[in-house]
């Protein structure tokens, strides 16, 4: 009988690896589904608010244009507001940021700061128009970098991962909206937030 001792020693490892491979493929599907649900929700929340400011500015630009009014200050606010909104990413820049992680000279996109600028520009525009700013549902909770991470939903992901005993060290990458490692990125850490 032909007997390969090596095969016997490795047999457990082989079973494990086969199982791991299948499990990984299955887990990936679940991860994609779960991540997608969250990303949809966050993208909607953020861009619904930004879109509101954008629509507001667009309509006033059209109105002022039709009236032939040349109020320098108002035009200026509108232009600035639209420019700021145009800077806001419509794609979670984590992929792009990861690609450029080697070049630290790249100017960082400070999302919470940009968001604050947009909100205050909107209020300035309202003031010059003599219109009362609409309070967005979440206006009070502007994303703040020094917000304690404990109320961060991403922490639950962290917790899960830790509980599952997966302690592989991940490279710290720059991500703006990170699902499972908010602290990898200090200045932008609190971005996945509730508005």
């Amino acid at each position, binding site marked *: 009988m032909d007997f390969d001792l090596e095969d016997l020693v490795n047999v*457990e*490892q082989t*079973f*494990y690896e086969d*199982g*791991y*491979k*299948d*499990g*990984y*493929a*299955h*887990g*990936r599907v*679940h*991860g*994609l*589904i*779960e*991540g*997608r*649900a*969250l*990303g*949809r*929700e966050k*993208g*909607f929340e953020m*861009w*619904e608010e*930004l*879109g*509101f*400011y*954008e*629509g*507001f*500015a*667009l*309509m*006033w630009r*059209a*109105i002022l*244009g*039709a009236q032939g009014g040349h109020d320098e200050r108002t035009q200026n606010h509108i232009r600035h507001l639209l420019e700021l909104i145009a800077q806001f990413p*419509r*794609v*979670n820049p*984590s*992929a792009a940021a990861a690609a450029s992680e080697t070049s630290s000279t790249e100017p960082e996109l400070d999302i919470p700061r940009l968001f604050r600028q947009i909100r205050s520009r909107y209020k300035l525009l309202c003031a010059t128009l003599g*219109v009362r700013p*609409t309070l967005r549902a979440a206006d009070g909770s502007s994303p703040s970098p020094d917000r304690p991470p404990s109320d961060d*939903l991403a922490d639950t992901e962290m917790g899960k*991962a830790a509980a*599952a005993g997966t302690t592989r060290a991940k490279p710290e990458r720059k*991500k703006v*909206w*990170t*699902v*499972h490692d908010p602290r990898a990125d200090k200045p932008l850490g609190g971005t996945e937030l509730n508005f």
Partner: protein
Amino acid sequence: MDDEAFWSSDPNVLRDTEWDKISSEFTNAGYREGITAGKEGALQEGFDDGFATVGAPIGRELGILRGLCSALLAFLSPADPSQSTSDAALANEVREIAAALVNVRFSDIAPPDLEAIAHAREHLEPSNAMTQDEDAADLTDPAKLNEEIKDKRDMENLEDLMAQVGSSNAPSVAPARPTTEDVTRLKARLMSIAQGLGLPLQWS
């Protein structure tokens, strides 16, 4: 291994069950580790996908419509109510559109996650070897995938309940939720009003 196998006269039975036991033990252990690693590795990718392809564009479109309404309404309702009456009807229509838009929720207009539905179906197939997944049905319900989304949905349900209670002796039938088609119609109405006023609007 059960007793019958142990006492069986055929030694192959014993050997086979032992073999099966080792096989399934290690395969399952690998599967468990694998599923965790696979899930963790794919979360961010899924998030980015959902953000870019669904959440951001749909949110922006709805937000823009709401912003347009807000500005137009402010323009049409001057501080001095004794002014033009022709605009009053128009203002009312815009107000109506605005109210309808406010009522729209993401869950009303979000497209279904087809991949999630397909995968949930796979889970339900009895022939499928994927084990111990009681969460098959949960895959298609975002509220069951994430605590925060669940909280938001709970809040919305509460709002619905309050609205029903508030509308006194209204029938217990919940009003139909708005759809994507409703939003499209509201947009068309709004755009035609703007056009009528000679207000050019466009965004990409």
